[in-house]
């Protein structure tokens, strides 16, 4: 019974340590909810910067050479910073630092993360990494323009913007981010393993927690690869070693390197880079499963299969990395292996899609704003996932690699889809986080314009890729093989992009206005079963649960259970309070 003693101890502790001052409460806070919001706001802030950068690129591509501040140097800096910020500093930070922090303790029935102090450090280290990254815009030579993949040799040679300081700051910032992520990640894993409330077996956890949990494990094991490659590149850059640098003649000058391998860097980078895709995708998978289930009033279809699919995708994600390198000049025989593993990973991913759609089937679907975003996600994710089958297949990758098809594919699958989930999740949990309801009409407008606008951006972009328009080109110039209309298409894409960016104002207006003057929210406005909706206070106070921790008696998906009057049964309701005969619906 020692665990009960521990609980008692902690309750006692919380009474005494409930922070009172503003600074302790909102700045140097160790409360996972405050840290989550700090993470979220910082990530969205840098995300907006990266969105701005993408508009600069789109302006150049749609209307070439019209603006003086967009030149090849700044363009490649925009590309690099846009990619790096979006992938790492926005999506990774927002899903794990933001949603992970907010949801894990609440959904698991814990009072906080297991190591709150380290959790706080994690955020401040993350903020530091963001500051270092943004500082690189203002140093001599500006930010690095090496592309977000930072491939050597060019990343550290003249001819690429930012070789003076930009690349250094980028690598240092990444290293700091990795430290921040590791501190956070240890917390998320340990909290899921150790701090679940009584009755919350692993298989009763909501899929949001599963997604975040598996993604965190991937992150913890994969980020070291980025760290190792960053350190080795710093060695090559500052000490003159030749890890990645072969003997070359750069602009007619011999920089003195001998024998290194640029492909070695690519292996390390993508050993991190591919799991990174799933670090972003898996939390989105998890969260969207919960949104669908709640708003369709139906249990998630095939919960066990969903969990195992997450685990399978997580495991397989470590053996597919070289599909980013089919045309990198690595040994061509690797192509056979990696094409096979990559297409195998499509199977568990497809299962997830089927199960989402089957969750809608025979449901009772409320098309509220979070649900709209969730269904929008299914659509864009199907699209992005299917184009992945083109690129994963080594033969088809050859003509399409390094073209706009790739850009369209990964934006669809890794940009639009997770961002739709982010929006859906923010709308879904907004009432819990702020205690206020958002404005439904504004939210719907936001969804429609974002969803249709982004599809108008990325669907045609695939076809530019088919024609052979290369990515990372500042300007296409005149070519024989591209029709004039390709430029017109580019202009149309740019207009869509500007439109989508502008409509995001609706989101921020909605959030800020609703936070101030929104209708007071019901503690459980969606009639959801999961624990975060059952907190005694909305928004939850420090310590989350009042004097007693919740006790869980059932899984997170008891919606529309036959013979029970309400169409949902919260996880804390013991079976004797619900009529028996529970497994009627089970088909074996």
């Amino acid at each position, binding site marked *: 019974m020692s665990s009960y003693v521990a*609980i008692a101890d902690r309750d006692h502790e919380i009474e005494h340590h409930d922070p009172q001052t503003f600074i302790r409460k909102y700045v140097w806070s160790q409360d996972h909810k405050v840290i989550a919001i700090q993470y979220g706001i910082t990530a969205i802030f840098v995300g907006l910067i990266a969105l701005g950068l993408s508009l600069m690129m789109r302006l150049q591509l749609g209307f070439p050479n019209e603006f003086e501040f967009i030149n090849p140097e700044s363009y490649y800096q925009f590309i690099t910073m846009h990619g790096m910020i979006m992938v790492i500093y926005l999506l990774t930070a927002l899903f794990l630092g933001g949603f992970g922090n907010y949801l894990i303790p609440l959904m698991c029935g814990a009072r906080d993360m297991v190591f709150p102090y380290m959790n706080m450090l994690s955020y401040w280290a993350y903020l530091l990494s963001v500051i270092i990254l943004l500082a690189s815009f203002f140093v001599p030579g500006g930010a690095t323009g090496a592309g977000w993949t930072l491939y050597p040799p060019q990343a550290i040679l003249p001819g690429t913007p930012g070789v003076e300081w930009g690349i250094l700051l980028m690598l240092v910032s990444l290293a700091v981010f990795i430290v921040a992520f590791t501190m956070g990640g*240890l917390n998320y894993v340990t909290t899921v393993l150790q701090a679940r409330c009584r009755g919350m*077996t692993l298989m009763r956890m909501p899929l949001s927690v599963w997604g975040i949990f598996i993604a965190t*494990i991937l992150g913890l094991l994969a980020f070291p690869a980025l760290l190792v490659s960053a350190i080795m590149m710093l060695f090559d850059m500052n000490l003159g070693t030749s890890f990645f640098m072969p003997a070359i003649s750069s602009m007619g000058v011999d920089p003195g390197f001998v024998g290194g391998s640029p492909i070695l860097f690519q292996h390390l980078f993508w*050993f991190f880079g591919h799991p990174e895709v799933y670090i972003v995708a898996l939390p989105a998978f998890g969260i969207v499963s919960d949104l669908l289930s709640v708003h369709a009033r139906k249990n998630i279809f095939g919960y066990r299969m969903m969990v195992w699919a997450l685990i399978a995708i997580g495991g397989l994600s470590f053996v597919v990395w070289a599909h980013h390198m089919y045309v990198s000049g690595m040994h061509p025989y690797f192509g056979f292996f990696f094409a096979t593993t990559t297409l195998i990973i499509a199977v568990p991913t497809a299962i997830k899609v089927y199960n989402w759609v089957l969750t809608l089937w025979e449901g009772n679907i409320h098309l509220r704003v979070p649900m709209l975003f969730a269904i929008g996600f299914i659509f864009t994710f199907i699209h992005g996932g299917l184009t992945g089958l083109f690129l994963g297949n080594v033969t088809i990758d050859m003509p399409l690699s390094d073209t706009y098809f790739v850009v369209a594919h990964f934006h669809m699958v890794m940009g639009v889809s997770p961002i739709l989930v982010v929006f859906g999740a923010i709308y879904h949990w907004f009432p819990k986080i702020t205690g206020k309801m958002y404005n439904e009409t504004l939210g719907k407008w936001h969804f429609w314009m974002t969803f249709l606008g982004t599809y108008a951006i990325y669907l045609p972009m695939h076809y530019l890729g088919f024609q052979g328009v290369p990515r990372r080109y500042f300007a296409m110039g005149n070519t024989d093989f591209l029709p004039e209309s390709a430029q017109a298409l580019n202009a149309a894409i740019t207009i869509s992009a500007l439109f989508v960016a502008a409509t995001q104002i609706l989101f921020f207006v909605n959030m800020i206005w609703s936070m101030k003057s929104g209708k007071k929210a019901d503690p459980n406005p969606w009639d959801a079963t999961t624990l975060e909706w059952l907190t005694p206070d909305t928004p939850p106070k420090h310590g989350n649960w009042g004097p007693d921790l919740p006790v869980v*008696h059932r899984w997170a998906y*008891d919606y529309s259970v036959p013979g029970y009057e309400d169409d949902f049964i919260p996880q804390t309701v013991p079976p004797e309070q619900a009529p028996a005969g529970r497994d009627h619906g089970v088909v074996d």
Partner: protein
Amino acid sequence: MEYILIVLAVILGGLLGWLLKQTFNAEPWVADVVSDTAHQGPMNAHSKLIGLVTLLAVVTSFFALIVSAYTLRMDLGDWIPLTEPGILWMNTGVLVVASLAFQWTRNAAVRNDESKLLPGMIVTGLLTSVFVIGQFIAWQQLNASGQYVTSNPANAFFFFLTGAHAVHILGGMYVWTRATVRLMSGKDTESVRRSIELCALYWHFLLIVWLVLFGLLLST
């Protein structure tokens, strides 16, 4: 990359086995009354251990990746094997003894034998410091004999590997320092003792890492 894959297979395989045991036969939709003895409640006593083990998995991945890079780079033709300075043998011996000393201290902590804790900790700390200084001397010796970090990829990897290992030791020394200071102040002995147990585990882990790295350096 086969080394990192093997390491990951072990880590993920272990995790997967555990997950399967938890999940395979579960029928999650069946509700039940949670009995008092059924698990599932905060078990803070183990949290730090779980946290540490997770961290060790991360560090393992980090070193396995360097080793993978090492073996890939080694095959590129310009590799000239480095003759490791003899002092590394001594350093290795010192680190082994440090680990043993930590284990002895840990055992004392478990037995609640408080009188042995401080001497044990200090001896461990001294030995570990000797190891770090010894590594530094090894670097000096290499530099003095004209074997710089840039001379050859073998050298670069030597400095990288030993440096990365030393940084991890220094990180451990930070925790060791905190524990020792708290030990001297005599406060909060229960948590200090737990800290010693975890520290000992970390020391053993870094010893194993070092033995693997040293073996790799010697054999290539």
